[in-house]
């Protein structure tokens, strides 16, 4: 067939393009598809064998209505031929007809939903999204069996044609927000979208900013909870990470575990996490500034201890701290990249050999190691913000070493202000504390029992504020 040759040519005669021809009732039926992305069993069972058994008149309509045992069948015209082939469909041509049937027997190797490594739970659902957007849709559908759930698909990326799926509840989510997001997605003009993080930069008003105002999660229960508060979720095919919009920094202090334990414990642990942010960012800088400039503020006994361990060091305090910080950051990077079976080796080399021997040899001091290690550990109370916190730690270390405590306070004020200027999708980043929204304090640093949280967060523009009415006023 001429058209099949044409399609093959348009697809550069790649070796995984397969053309299968069958003669049914003296008419030639040709199928073209990418053999790597279809379910061969399904193809044989639902397309080829019914066709071979068929004895009637062969037209596209007849085949569609009477023969083919495929769920998704569509008649497509000439202009969509190539597009459908590269989207992993089977195109079926009948001799003498100009159109073709587009059949969905797509199959990719995917993994099963499993507990996501980034957010394990102790007592709670262990499901996680997978790279397939179809699984994502299925998992969200399972959690939200309501007629109000809206799912919209977009295909973005000139070369990848990645499927982007948007979820929201039409009776809760703000129309303006949806329009804004849709507009931004449609505006994306790029070759490839390989992961959710790719589209964050396109959705953001300030892509250059140090902080990002997007929620990222791998867990269906979190996404569902957020959709139920009037947020919009965006899934990208090929990524298990789902983006939720709008986002406040307070959400990173929350964890899905929080809702499956006692509310008092949750409040306590959230304070610890907030403390973790401060420890992770400013502690090395403050320590350095104390050692370089502000001996007065440190109690005498600590001066004695620090002096005792640092007096014979060959480095100045600044170089020492920089050295330890870079060393630890390097160890962290190594432990991420190294194959898992080598992990033990790095921890021995890193922690024992470098740390302990460094102190013993008098190259680095133990207070310095304690401070940096403390700061690194506390960073993982909020793993989502780890990259930002690492940069901030470095900045505050530099400021502490040059401008002292006053500089650190100045830096803190500046960064709080910086967070306050972030207002993406009209949602203040530090809400509900600045601006203070009394209603939303029920689930901020402290959490009320779930039965007492009767209203949805006011900071997200909702059509309906009260919970429990199913969105119907």
């Amino acid at each position, binding site marked *: 067939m001429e058209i099949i040759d044409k399609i093959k040519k348009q697809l550069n005669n790649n070796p995984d393009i397969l053309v299968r021809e069958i003669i049914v009732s003296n008419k030639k039926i040709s199928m073209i598809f990418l053999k790597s992305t279809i379910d061969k069993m399904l193809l044989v069972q639902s397309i080829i064998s019914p066709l071979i058994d068929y004895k009637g008149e062969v037209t596209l309509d007849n085949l569609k209505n009477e023969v083919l045992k495929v769920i998704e069948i569509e008649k497509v015209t000439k202009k969509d031929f190539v597009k459908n082939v590269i989207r992993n469909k089977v195109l079926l041509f009948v001799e003498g007809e100009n159109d073709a049937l587009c059949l969905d027997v797509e199959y990719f190797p995917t993994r099963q939903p499993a507990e996501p490594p980034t957010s394990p739970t102790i007592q709670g659902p262990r499901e996680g999204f997978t790279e397939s957007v179809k699984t994502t849709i299925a998992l969200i559908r399972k959690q939200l069996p309501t007629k109000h759930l809206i799912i919209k698909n977009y295909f973005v990326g000139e070369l990848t044609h990645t499927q982007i799926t948007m979820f929201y509840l039409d009776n809760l989510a703000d129309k303006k927000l949806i329009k804004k997001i849709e507009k931004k997605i449609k505006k994306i003009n790029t070759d490839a979208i390989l992961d959710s993080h790719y589209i964050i930069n396109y959705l953001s008003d300030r892509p250059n900013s140090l902080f990002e105002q997007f929620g990222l999660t791998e867990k269906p229960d979190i996404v569902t909870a957020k959709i139920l508060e009037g947020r919009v979720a965006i899934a990208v095919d090929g990524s298990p990470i789902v983006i939720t919009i709008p986002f406040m920094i307070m959400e990173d202090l929350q964890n899905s575990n929080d809702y499956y334990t006692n509310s008092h414990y949750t409040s306590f642990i959230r304070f610890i996490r907030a403390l973790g942010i401060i420890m992770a960012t400013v502690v090395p800088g403050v320590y350095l500034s104390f050692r370089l*400039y*502000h001996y*007065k*503020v*440190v*109690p*005498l*006994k*600590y001066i004695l201890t620090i002096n005792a361990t640092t007096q014979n060091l060959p480095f100045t305090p600044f170089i020492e701290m920089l050295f330890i910080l870079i060393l630890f950051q390097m160890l962290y990077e190594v432990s991420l990249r190294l194959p898992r079976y080598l992990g033990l080796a790095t921890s021995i080399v890193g922690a024992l050999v470098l740390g302990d021997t460094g102190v013993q040899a008098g190259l680095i001091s133990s207070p310095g190691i304690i401070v940096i290690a403390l700061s690194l550990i506390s960073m993982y109370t909020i793993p989502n913000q780890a990259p930002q916190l690492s940069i901030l730690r470095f900045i505050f270390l530099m400021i502490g070493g040059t*401008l*002292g*405590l*006053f*500089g650190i*306070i*100045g*830096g803190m*004020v*500046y960064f*709080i*202000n*910086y967070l*306050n*200027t972030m207002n993406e999708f009209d949602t*203040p980043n*530090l809400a509900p*504390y*600045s*601006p*203070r929204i009394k209603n939303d304090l029920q689930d901020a640093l402290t959490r009320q029992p779930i039965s007492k949280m009767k209203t949805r967060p006011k900071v997200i523009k909702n059509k309906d504020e009260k919970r429990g009415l199913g969105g119907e006023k």
Partner: protein
Amino acid sequence: MKEQISIRQTACFCAISLLALKLIALPSLLFEKSNSSGLIVAILLFIADFLMLFLYLKIKEKYPDFSLYEIIKKYLGKIIAKIVYILIYLFFVFKLCMLMNEGVLYMQDVVDEDYSLIVFLLTYLPVITALSFNGLKSCARTCEFGFVFIIIGLIICLFLSEISLSFGEIGPLFIKDTKNILSACFDYNFWFSDFLFVTILADKIKIEKNAKRKIFSFVFMVAILLLILYFVYFRLFRVTAFLNKNAIADVTEYNRNIGNSGNIDIISILVYLFVIFLQGSLYMNCLRICYEKIFEYKNSYHSLISANIILILFEYFIFFNIQKITDFVLFYFKYFGALIWIIIPLFYILLIIICKEKKYDKKYKKLYKKI
């Protein structure tokens, strides 16, 4: 879009501006001059300040979309409005200089003996400029965010001081004659009159229910904390007030050996440093707004750069040491207080009395559109 701040944010601004200049040098000066009547002087000035605030808020209710500039322009003409704004600009420059001087002195006394003015200026000015450049709204939010920590810190400081000890031997609070007290009030008015910024930002404050109640509850809370601090300070230092120039640090340092752990004044240091940053950003915003009104020209770069240059000139070349600016303020600037304490309030009271309500409102709204 017009940048607007909520009533709660205004209340935070009010509370922080009440704190900023009163934590360090003021108690020392008050008790040095008027001995035990210092507390009375402070209370009187607080009351006067509150009356001013009440007046400003009353006017805000009457002319919700007008700031001081528009009101003066409407009744007295553009030139007078500009002159008043130039004076107010100067007032804020002085307040900021005072704040910076106290900041440097505090850093040198409490944190680091070798702390230099240049390092201070290089840290302080860019931060408050950036805060002001990012707009009033985000600045107000930052204040709102920091306010809780500041109040908690202040309360901890007070608890760490000797607040729990007996209140028996305080002595009479009212010894010197009234004339002395009034003259002290007159001398130290510069350290008060904190709420002037409300009139300048009046058009940017959202109209909400219970505005006065909200603002006053914040302000009263801070005023009470300050009075407790003064009381503790007075109890501790009485006759040696002139030696203890850093009230909040001295009060907490007094008990420096709690549990044998050495200094515990880090909390007071954090509280004070946060306060001066937030307060500085508010003054910087006021300077920016005054500049824009005076030159009828909106450009944050120009207004902020000019404000920075003026501040550096004043700070570095004129008031190099704290005593100089304190003396200057005590000798000359107190007369400037007349503008804030007498002329503007009188003008406002006249407005309230003469202009009857409501029927003017529509007119003003039309007028506002023209402006």
